[in-house]
């Protein structure tokens, strides 16, 4: 299936390419289609990074405006969505820096954890553990859990596992090496798993 899909990708241009050509030709309604297509994801990514709804709205606006203004510079050798995500991530990090004046925000910083250590928490989870909670409770648990991750891990997990960027695209977007993305992703996945265990343990967690 993946082989068939990659063959299709090779010969058929991404549907965004035609829309971008129209925008370059002055058709702003084509940009409207692109904004509709990606505004949710861009807002979500911005909110994951900034943790602030107002900032996330501003970031989404700025990112789409910047992409529009720089559309001539878009080479087409990466996907429009990946290019847009890169702009949104940079805008989000800039906003964080503004909020935390004097405190640098960098996803390049390595966060000291026990790399490669075997997880200690052996607790298995209940089958379909999310069903023990209603939607609001579950969303709250998932938010709290991911917010507790170090920034550099959180952003990599969101781009790679939630928004579905490839390892290469994530590395390019964040200006990190591929091994750095892989290392952060592994630690993010394991830390989230361990933190969720307290809620999804076979006998429903007491630390709810």
């Amino acid at each position: 299936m993946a082989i068939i899909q990659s063959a299709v990708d090779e010969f058929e241009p991404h549907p965004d390419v035609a829309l971008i050509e129209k925008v370059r030709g002055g058709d702003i309604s084509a940009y409207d289609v692109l904004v509709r297509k990606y505004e949710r994801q861009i807002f979500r990514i911005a909110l994951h990074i900034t943790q602030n709804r107002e900032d996330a709205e501003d970031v989404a606006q700025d990112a789409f405006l910047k992409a529009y203004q720089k559309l001539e510079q878009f080479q087409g050798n990466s996907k429009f969505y990946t290019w847009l995500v890169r702009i949104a991530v940079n805008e989000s990090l800039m906003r964080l820096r503004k909020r935390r004046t004097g405190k640098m925000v960098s996803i390049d910083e390595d966060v000291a954890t026990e790399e490669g250590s075997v997880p200690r928490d052996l607790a298995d989870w209940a089958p379909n553990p999310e069903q023990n909670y209603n939607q609001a409770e579950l969303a709250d648990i998932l938010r709290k859990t991911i917010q507790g991750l170090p920034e550099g891990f959180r952003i990599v997990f969101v781009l790679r596992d939630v928004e579905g960027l490839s390892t290469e695209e994530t590395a390019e977007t964040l200006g990190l090496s591929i091994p750095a993305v892989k290392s952060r992703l592994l630690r993010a996945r394991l830390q989230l798993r361990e933190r969720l265990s307290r809620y999804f343990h076979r006998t429903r967690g007491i630390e709810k």
Partner: protein
Amino acid sequence: MTCKEFLALLDDIIDGSVSPETRAELHTHLDHCSHCKVTLDTTLKTIEIYRSHEIYDLPDNLREQLHSAIMTRCKKGC
């Protein structure tokens, strides 16, 4: 295969990018190690839960506001 070696391959296993030979070794290890089996299953579940639940949803009315704000600014930026 040790648990540490298994863990080093965890991301490749999740992403389905291990060779058939390594996959056979992994299965042998998992058959005898409940620790790694739990680690793999619950990590996969972690990813699936985050992927299938939008924890930061944008309600339709706010989405419309955001959309029109973006388009207004883009039109001014022409």
